[in-house]
């Protein structure tokens, strides 16, 4: 690819490409991501749509929070099962609400670590409309007790 055919103006995601330069040598140049520049809205739109659909299923008890995060974080089943210390068969069971409620807290904690979320997020959904406007921030602060967090809602730093 020729250098002049490459350049994409997209500052949030810069990449290194190897291209043919004017003197016919090949070498690195920095450019924005073509895909993100042109298709990021589509990606985010699909993701939001999927999240809303999963939330509805979660509210109806059709899926468990484990399935919700499994899909949203694009985990492979075997990878997640290994991180949670369970078999793939068990993981599939945990994706259903009727089995989720029987899960030992220790195992649930392992899942929370794999998803990098506080345990409490398996049991509630906090919707804060103004969060995106930057007026306040929500932080889950870890404590010495690994099963307990302090949720802090604060005015956003200016």
């Amino acid at each position, binding site marked *: 690819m020729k250098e002049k055919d490459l350049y994409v103006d997209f500052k949030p995601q810069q990449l290194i490409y190897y291209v043919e330069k004017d003197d016919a040598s090949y070498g690195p140049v920095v450019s924005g991501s073509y895909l993100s520049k042109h298709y990021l809205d589509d990606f985010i739109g*699909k993701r939001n749509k999927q999240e809303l659909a999963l939330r509805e299923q979660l509210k109806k008890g059709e899926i468990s929070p484990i399935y919700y995060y499994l899909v949203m974080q694009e985990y492979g089943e075997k990878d997640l099962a290994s991180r949670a210390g369970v078999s793939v068969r068990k993981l599939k069971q945990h994706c259903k609400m009727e089995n989720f409620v029987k899960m030992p807290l220790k195992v649930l904690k392992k899942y929370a670590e794999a998803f990098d979320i506080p345990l409490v997020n398996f049991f509630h959904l906090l919707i804060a409309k103004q969060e995106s406007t930057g007026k306040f921030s929500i932080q889950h602060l870890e404590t010495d007790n690994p099963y307990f967090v302090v949720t802090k809602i604060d005015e956003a730093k200016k």
Partner: protein
Amino acid sequence: MKEIDFKHKMAAHCETGTVTSLLNHKGLDITEPMVFGLSSGIFFGYFESSNFPFPTFIVRNKPGSIRTNISKRLGVKFYTKKFRSDKEGEGTLNELILKDIPTAVQVDFYYMDYMPDYQRVHINVHFVNIIGMNDSSYLISDSYFPKKSELKKTTMQKARFAGGYMEPKGFLFYPEYIPEEIDFEKAIIKAIKKNAFYMLKLPVPFVGIKGMRKFARKVTDWPNIARDVDHLSHEIMRINILLEDQGTGGAGFRYLYATFLQQAADIVKDDGLKDMSKRMMEIGDNWRNISYFAAKIGKNRDLGPERLKELSEMINARADEEYKFFNDLNKLVK
């Protein structure tokens, strides 16, 4: 913040980037494409495994083998260590930083919170260089990010000790010894031969050229395994990500390999390699056409059987081209 005097620079790929920067820091003048080519980095593999949420493909050799192959070919010795205990892993890393040794670590990419949210996925084979620290944070040189970044030590611990597929176990490395004399010519020929073997002759039905053909066959079945049309669109558009955006230098490492061949031609003094480098650049352009095509049909949800057949034929055409290319390359270096 304690900071080691280390030149941060972006690179096409995280592993070639960290290895190249560390070798440069240690005094070896070597480029990223040369590191990639010498480690026989170009590859293709199509995978259907429950380790991944959907069938996927890779376009480079196994994670970790950039370093191991560079070590074999150039005689560079790396200090490497994995850890059973995260405390020990943290302690060793901190000691190395205090001794002014920039150190590469293997991490789960998801935790690199300086990257945009939409890019962050769980993948245990990201590599970054640690080049400084204070009580609470590390200073990171990540080839994918334009600037040096800070990451909380607690977050780095999670990233280094994430479990799962190809778990890092706190793995770290840095070059300990670089030979004074390196026979680059010999190393280049050996690396090219090995790469041709990987692409043409590995007796595994889903790697090399056979892997491309499998991908071409299987992609037309993807509608049967996707949850819905949006999911299918997402996975088809991921073809573009895997070829262009996930640290490949463009066109699934084909441009990087073309650059290696051009540099190799000068070292080996063989114009034949220069011609091969031009051919590889053209092959890269054709892969890039696949990237654009996948992004377009994915965005338009134009994912009917005819369109996927078209995509499949484009992939098969690349397999034909690369079959001929690697056979010719193999003959040239024999």
